[in-house]
């Protein structure tokens, strides 16, 4: 018998709507969308270009304010928080991976990760270095910690970006097209790392992607088209306990 408390969503979007532009140019991108995401589960949000996937991800992650609706995350109504509170929420609970790696060209792989914990958590230089090295080792980049982005392959750069997102052990990990700039072998490695973040660390992972090959690597698939959710495929039941907020 499954404990109902294990089925509580860690992140919940309720009746979300968002438009861009005004007057005749106004375009509704999200039409009354509701979605639930669970701790320890990796969810793939799929759909054609312009379907509103990235916009929905931005709203759920606290980056873009919806026109209407609520986002509940770990018991917080995300969009009723002040900008500063929402920034602190993201700092404590959210990791992001984007299509473009967006790494600082001048900094080494280690420094890219150190910066997040030193600036975000005020960690000491020694502690930041230790955590960065541990994460890079987990990502298979231990021997490349001293290299800069121009010296890394696309897959390695994306792994550094993942490390930057996960080093602070976030409750939520949002990935927008994380494999689109990579070959499939590198892309598989990236998806496996995100799976590990969900299954091994209990994070709530939401991946936005076009690539159908990712489907068999995720726990749940949500289809989106024209700003509406159409199909939700539950590939694996939710059995992971909800990770308590830090």
């Amino acid at each position: 018998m499954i404990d109902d408390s294990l089925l509580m969503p860690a992140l919940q979007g309720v009746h979300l709507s968002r438009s861009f532009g005004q007057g005749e140019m106004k375009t509704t991108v999200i039409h009354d969308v509701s979605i639930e995401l669970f701790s320890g589960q990796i969810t793939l949000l799929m759909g054609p270009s312009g379907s509103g996937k990235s916009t929905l991800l931005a709203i759920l992650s606290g980056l873009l304010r919806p026109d209407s609706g609520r986002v509940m995350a770990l018991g917080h109504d995300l969009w009723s928080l002040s900008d500063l509170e929402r920034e602190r929420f993201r700092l404590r609970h959210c990791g992001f991976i984007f299509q473009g790696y967006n790494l600082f060209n001048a900094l080494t792989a280690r420094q890219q990760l150190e910066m997040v914990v030193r600036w975000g958590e005020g960690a000491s230089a020694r502690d930041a270095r230790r955590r960065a090295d541990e994460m890079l080792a987990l990502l298979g980049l231990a021997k490349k910690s001293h290299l800069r982005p121009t010296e890394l392959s696309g897959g390695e750069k994306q792994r550094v970006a993942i490390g930057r997102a996960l080093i602070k052990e976030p409750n939520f990990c949002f990935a927008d097209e994380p494999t689109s700039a990579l070959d499939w072998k590198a892309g598989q490695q990236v998806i496996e790392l995100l799976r590990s973040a969900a299954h091994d660390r209990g994070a709530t992972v939401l991946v936005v992607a076009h690539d159908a090959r990712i489907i068999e690597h995720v726990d749940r698939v949500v289809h989106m088209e024209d700003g509406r959710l159409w199909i939700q495929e539950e590939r694996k039941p939710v059995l992971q306990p909800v990770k308590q907020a830090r």
Partner: protein
Amino acid sequence: MASYSLATLWYERQRYVPGVLAVAFSALLIALQCGLLLGLFSITSIPIDHTQADVWMGASEVLSVDLGRPIPESTLARLGVQPEVKCCEIYMQGFAFWSKPKGGSELCMVIGSCLSRDSLGKIDKLTPEQCGMLAEEGAVIIDESDAKRLDVKLGETAYISGQQVRVVSMTRGLPSLAGPYVLCSIPTARKRLPMQKGQTTTYVLGRCRDPQDAPKVVERLNHSYKDVSAFTQSVFSRRTQLHWLLKTKAGIALGYAAALGLLVGAVVTWQTLYAATVASMREYAVLRALGIPRWRIAGMVVSQSFWIGIIGIALALPAAYGSAWAVDRMMGIHISLPWWLLNSAAAVTLGMALVSGLFALYSLRQIEPAMLLR
């Protein structure tokens, strides 16, 4: 933050070179402009700075050493009775016209002083032999750089105020601003300076047993006598330089040029930092998405502007010394670069770089993490 800023500045140095050079240019311009000003106007106080008097007494409210008016020689006694004063003597200085041997005239500055070994008013560049030569009536010494201007060679004669003079020697390192210095004895000067009639002198000089008593002596003299003014050596030197600075408005002209240089430096540095920040917009947006506070990112930009300032100043300082040496060597123009001037130029330039960094922060307002998802 400093290590990340420096790493970025070094790795992307080509991007930041314009900013660094702009700061260096500003610092160099300020230092050289002010140094030129100092060097130029320090010439006006040569008769004060290169003599040995602690106290100068002259006409009431005399503005500059070259604008002295006749005062009674009896003023000597007023200074001599001061208990702190060891010795005193008269000193003459004034403008006169030098009639060139081949025609034409030139304004010159006649300086007549005692020429004994312990003389207070003797220019320190004169050797004992030269002082001996000046004992001859009409003997004068000029700076070799002025020989062409006065159209005279060593041993030749000319006229000052209708009185013949003979150039018995030349010296070096006595540049002048208004008119060439013509060094001579008191009797020679008295006959060539038209305003010196009767028992008058231009200044009375005094030396204290303890130089630190000079301010006290000056204060007492100024309090006791209203028809003359007394100054310490340093005060009179500064007063002379300041008078020339304000009278000629050269300070304003050079200050304007320095301010323009500062403005150019500020704009280029600001644009360099602005462009660099915009170029890293997406990276900063990721940090913002991760919840890194905006002030941290702002701190990195300001830190970069600080290091650009430091590196620019470090480049400017040796360039300033090198330029000053070259100008002095090639053109004989002295550019004075005391430590306080260089520190001030560095401080002003560093402040300018930091302000540029603050202006560059405006670009951070454009950073919105959601833009990464469009």
